[in-house]
């Protein structure tokens, strides 16, 4: 029987995969997907803890995170669209006008 720490380890691994993706991938859209992965990992952690403690706060939290994620995606993709219209690239390394 898996206990809560098994779920937590899965969440931790997923979270770290997300961080890794943000760090190494240069495609903005993929970086963004990896951020979604991080949020999902946190969601898993929350749900597991919610079950552990037997209270619903964690599930409500996840509910809110899903809403926030939806909004974030809408705005983030809009930002990416605006960027691509001007620069014609999704490679984050090509957007480095602002520096030093």
């Amino acid at each position, binding site marked *: 029987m898996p206990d809560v720490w098994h779920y937590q380890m899965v969440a931790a691994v997923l979270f770290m995969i997300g*961080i890794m993706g943000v760090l190494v991938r*240069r495609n903005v859209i993929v970086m963004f997907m990896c951020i979604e992965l991080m949020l999902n990992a946190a969601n898993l952690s929350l749900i597991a803890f919610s079950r552990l403690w037997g209270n619903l706060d964690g599930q409500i939290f996840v509910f809110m995170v899903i809403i926030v994620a939806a909004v974030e995606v809408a705005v983030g993709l809009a930002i990416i669209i605006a960027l691509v219209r001007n620069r014609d690239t999704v490679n984050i*390394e090509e957007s480095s*006008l602002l*520096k*030093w």
Partner: protein
Amino acid sequence: MVNDGHANDYLRLIPLFPLLGALISGIWLMFARKEWPRSIVILVACSAPIASFVVAFSQFLELATAKFPDGRFFIDNVYTWIGSHSFQAEMSFLFDPLSAVMVMVVTGVGSLIHIYSIGYMDDDHRDDKGFQRFFVYLNLFTFSMLMLVLGDNLLVLFVGWEGVGLCSYLLIGFWYLEDHNAMCGQKAFVVNRIGDFAFLIGIFILFWAFYQAGHPTIDFLEMKAHIGELTELTVPVPPWFATIGLAVPTWKLLTVAGLCFFVGACGKSAQLPLYVWLPDAMAGPTPVSALIHAATMVTAGVYMVCRMSFLYDHAPGALSTIAWVGGLTAFFAATIAITQKDIKKVLAYSTVSQLGYMFLAAGMASYSAAIFHLATHAFFKALLFLAAGSVILGMHHEQDMDKMGGLRRKMPMTHIVFLIGVLAIIGAPPLSGFFSKDEILLGAFLNHDVPGAKFLWGLALFTAGLTSFYMLRLYFRIFTGPTRASADVFSHVKEQPAVVVGPLVVLALLSVFAGGVMGFPDAYGQWLMSMPDSNSLRHFLSETVSTSEHHISLGQELGLAGLAVFVALVAAGLAAVLYFYRTELVPGLTKKLRHVHTVLLNKYYVDEFYHAVIIKPLIRMSDALLFRVVDQRIIDGAGVNGIAKLVRGIADNGIKFAQTGLAQTYVFVMLIGGVAFLAYLVGGI
């Protein structure tokens, strides 16, 4: 400290008006490309001191007539300026007889000079915003001076003190496009800094002493109430002093503080050895010389000494120093004034000399005499300066009296008021100067506390003679005899308009009558009108400053006065002979006394002495050691520039390395930082 009956909310209006005047017009000037029409400038600028004068006058009457059970003063507590648990400084104003007299002088003479300036500055077109700028400075000065005299504690006083210094600097260098004027302004500023530094040290010492005594205050009334607890304090000496075999000095703390304050006063009031800036301050426009460098600002030192009289009453050593410095300055400056050719310079040295008189009086603990002379001097010296200004205007900005003479017919009004001023300053009875100078001499004669008081009295009497001599010389050289001006200039000389002459007439009337009205000696009052307290100013002031009651018979009083008048008359006669009847004697006499004359003409070479002994070595040392070694090598090389270079180098390289503009670098840095942060928290990797 605010008791019932002492609170008075009107006082804040007195400095407020000039401040508003300066702010409104000054802020406009800061942003606008053009100045206001002159009529508006005049309206704003001149209404401010007049409004202050009206308020001050009404409060003065209130103060003089109201009944106070516990001391005659008003207090206006505007707000708490600095509040900390152990130290409280209020922005509050104190209106007691001493500051009331000062406020009346400042606003009264100030208003007249504002009006006079309208005429004087009218033809000045050296700077397209100059007219308005001049009045902004003048209003700002009035504000600062009122802060100075109204301040209820040392901090407010110091704000005003620095404010007047700043305005003086700005106004001396008003025509800053000429290098010389700017240099003179700088000189005044630098010399004043020496005094201000000592003043500040004095404030610190006094506050520390009161703090030790358990009354952390710099409020005048509270300090006065608790000063008695400090008399035994001595300057703390570090213990190693004794261990290395040095004699442990036992200076009284109050004496040291008093001396520090006096050094401050020396700077502001141009006493030996810090008087050198005042003659050079004549580079400013003449109304400025009259207002700042004769009537008000330079007397701030005298006012401060009187204000701190509760301290000096416990510091007799400091008081004697004041008396001696004052007496010597009076004599010293008078001798220089004999040979000067520039009419404003003569008046400047005369101011230094008269200020010496005031300090002499203060040092003799007859503070009321000092304030009395301060007031009458404000009238007649302002009158003399303004009249001289009128002459200068008439002569098209000529100041050398060798190129004047015979102006009596050309400028009759100016001539009369100038003559009144001269008579007042030399102490011709019954003009103002007669009474005030007489009271000073009397105080010196009767003093027994100051070592050598009788000698100082004699010196002051002799100086009165010198004053008489150089003032009449000035008068004769300007107004009588055949003119030495070129015919072209002379033919254009004419009397000045009413806006210039009007204030002169008012000041002349004050010079004539103010002395008798304010300070008619009690002995004469008893004799002539059977009024035992006719010296109203003295009685008025006695509620603030300690006045030693000297009971003196009518005969003594008359005898001393007669002696003074006699000395003045002799000197006046000498001047009349040399500069009016037998002018041909002068060159021969000058030749015979040429060594003395050269020394005096060159003002005892004091400036040269300072330059050789202080300034030049200082510059040399600054240049050789401080600039070349300390500044360039150590501070610039290794210090500022080195550090700046290092920092810039680090920042430049660091920024290129870290702030790459690539989002993933930032993620990476966040990651490293976050991991380090968490590892620190969790305690170990």
